[in-house]
C-alpha cells in the first residue's frame, strides 16, 4: 500500500518536473517510478517515518492553522525588526513533545522552527530545547497549543 502510494507520488512528481506527455516517455516514467518505489521498499526507506502517507489525508486538519500561525508570528517579528528600539528578549526553554511517533515529533519540532520567532535548537528523546526571540514566544510554546494540535494531527498512528 505504501509502495503504491510512493510510486504514484514519484510518478506525479516526475511528470510535473519533466512536462513530457509522449506515450513512450509516460510508460518509461511509470516503470522507473515503480522500480524506485520497490527499491525504496527494500531499503526500508519507505516506512511510516520516511513516507508517512497516513498523514496526507489529515493535512487539512493541521496545516491551515499552522499557516495562519506562521503569518501572525512573521508579522510580529517584522514589527520587532522595524521597531526603532529593537525590543527583543531572547529566551531559551525546554518543552516536552507529547507525540508518540518519530514523524509526529519531527512535525512538531519543524512547526516550532518554521514559525518565525521560535527555533528548536536541540532534541533529546522527546524534550525539545527551544530558543525564542521574545519571552512571550517561549511562553506561547510552553502553553502547548501547538503540541496538542500536532498530537491530534498525528492521530492514533
Amino acid at each position, binding site marked *: 500500500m505504501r509502495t503504491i502510494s510512493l510510486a504514484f507520488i514519484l510518478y506525479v512528481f516526475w511528470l*510535473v518536473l519533466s512536462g513530457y506527455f509522449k506515450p513512450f516517455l509516460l510508460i518509461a516514467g511509470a516503470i522507473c517510478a515503480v522500480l524506485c518505489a520497490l527499491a525504496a521498499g527494500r531499503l526500508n526507506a519507505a516506512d511510516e517515518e520516511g513516507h508517512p502517507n497516513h498523514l496526507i489525508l489529515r493535512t487539512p486538519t493541521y496545516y491551515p492553522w499552522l499557516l495562519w500561525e506562521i503569518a501572525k508570528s512573521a508579522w510580529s517579528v517584522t514589527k520587532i*525588526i522595524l521597531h526603532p528600539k*529593537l525590543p527583543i528578549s531572547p*529566551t*531559551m*526553554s*525546554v518543552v516536552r513533545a507529547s507525540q508518540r511517533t518519530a514523524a509526529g515529533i519531527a512535525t512538531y519540532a*519543524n512547526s516550532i522552527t518554521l514559525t518565525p520567532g521560535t*527555533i528548536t535548537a536541540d532534541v533529546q*528523546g522527546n524534550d525539545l530545547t527551544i530558543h525564542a526571540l521574545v519571552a512571550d514566544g517561549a511562553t506561547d510554546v510552553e502553553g502547548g497549543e501547538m503540541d496538542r494540535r500536532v498530537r491530534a494531527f498525528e492521530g492514533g498512528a
Partner: protein
Amino acid sequence: MTLAVDIASWVLIVLGSFFTVVGAFGLVRMPEVFTRMHAASVIETLGAGFLIFGMCLQAGFTLVTLKLLFILALFFFFAPVVTHALARAVLHAGIEPKLAEDRRAAAKQRLAASGEGRQP
C-alpha cells in the same frame, strides 16, 4: 480580468519583496547568531510565500505554477530542517546565546518531576 490578475500578482510580489527586505534588514540589525536566524525565518516564510504566489498568478494554470508550488513545499519542509541543523551546530560548537531569560534548568526540573520522557 487580466488586469485584475496582474494587479493582484504585483501586490503579492511587492509584499513578498517587502518581507524579504525586512528579513535582510533584521539579519543585519540583530545582535547575535540565534536572533539573526529569527530574522531570516521571515524571509523564508512570508517573503518566499508571497513572492511565489505572486509568480503563480503570473504563470496562470500551467506546469510552471505546479513547479512553483513544489518549490514552496520544498521551502516549508527544508527551511526548518536547515535552521535546526544550524542552531544545533552553534550550540554544539559551544557558542552560548545571549539571553534575557534562561528557563532551561527550571523547565528540565519541572519535566523530570512530571514523569518519564521517552529517552533517545
